[in-house]
């Protein structure tokens, strides 16, 4: 049954998120309504722990040590490809290999669509998170966050040597949006990039990618 103050408004009042006029109305109501005061007290007193949020099943990218004729080799497969079985894995691993984009790496931040396109990494190792790492070693988990103008969409490209791969699905833009996480190994220098208007199978043109470079330890 409805009541002058719903649970949602009480929750927002508790969080300090009601617009001023509405907040004042709720405050006045609370002065005379014991039922709502009790509910608000219960909200404030609810200290039951928030269960851990398991990390989503994120794609994994593994990099073999350099040494072959091609230098680094991107080995798929991302875990979200794994459901399809071996044939799909092979296809996926092949599909992410793109090629030959010599030249300097783009900078870590570029102007794009009236805003900024930027990428930022966090490294998780033995349960410890290190923001903006410069290096990685086998077994590290690298979280990729991108920033770009809302309403746009960007890709996440990984460059090793002259090869680009696209291990994560495209991301809807926002401020420091988590694009996913990668597992790197092999010690090869790797650039992880937010890429504007990505075209599968082609390296991004200059000015269309913001990259951070990780060196192997």
């Amino acid at each position, binding site marked *: 049954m*409805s009541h002058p103050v719903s*649970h949602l408004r009480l929750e927002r009042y508790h*969080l300090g*998120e009601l617009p001023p006029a509405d907040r004042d109305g709720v405050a006045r109501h609370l002065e005379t309504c014991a039922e709502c005061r009790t509910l608000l007290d219960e909200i404030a007193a609810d200290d039951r722990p*928030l*269960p851990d*949020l*398991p990390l989503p099943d994120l794609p994994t990218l593994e990099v073999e040590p350099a040494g072959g004729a091609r230098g680094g080799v991107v080995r798929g497969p991302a875990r979200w490809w794994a459901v399809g079985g071996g044939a799909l894995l092979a296809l996926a691993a092949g599909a992410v290999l793109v090629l030959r984009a010599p030249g300097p790496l783009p900078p870590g931040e570029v102007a794009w669509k009236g805003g900024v396109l930027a990428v930022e990494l966090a490294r998780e190792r033995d349960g410890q998170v290190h923001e903006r790492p410069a290096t990685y070693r086998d077994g590290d988990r690298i979280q990729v966050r991108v920033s770009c103008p809302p309403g746009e969409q960007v890709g996440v490209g990984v460059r090793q040597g002259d090869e680009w791969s696209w291990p994560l699905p495209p991301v809807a833009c*926002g401020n420091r949006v988590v694009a996913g996480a990668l597992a790197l190994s092999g010690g090869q220098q790797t650039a992880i990039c937010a890429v504007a208007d990505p075209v599968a199978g082609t390296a991004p043109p200059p000015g269309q990618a913001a990259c951070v470079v990780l060196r192997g330890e």
Partner: protein
Amino acid sequence: MELYHRYGPALLRKCERMLGSRADAEDVVQALFLDLLRKGRTDVDLPYLYQAATRRSLNVIRDGRRRAELLSRHGDALVPRQGAVDERVIDAELVRRLCASLPEQTAEIAVYAFLDRMSQEEIASLCGLSRKTVGKRLEQVRQAAAGLVGGAP
């Protein structure tokens, strides 16, 4: 995830009210935030999340495999009645029973009105409906409730 820490507790309370189980509420809220993470959504507020959590909880209630368990969680404590239904008897359990059979949008409105204590205006604004439409849907809910309460042993 900042959003999870800010809004998680409110959503857990809300879903627990709907589902009658903290464990089920945790499942719904975790799934909701994992989905947001995957989509990279950070531009959401509590009303949006409330609505998303409501729909997900309704899916749990309407999931045939789980319905029997949910409905029996508090036993069948309804007292048979005749005629018009007193809104005070439209409690969580009755709403769960109604939601299993009402059309989706009507079920959602029933939850807002009878479990979340929202006014018709607040429901209309949250759902982007006219107040008149909300009123009509609530009338359907009352009729369905009267049928359920009046007919079931």
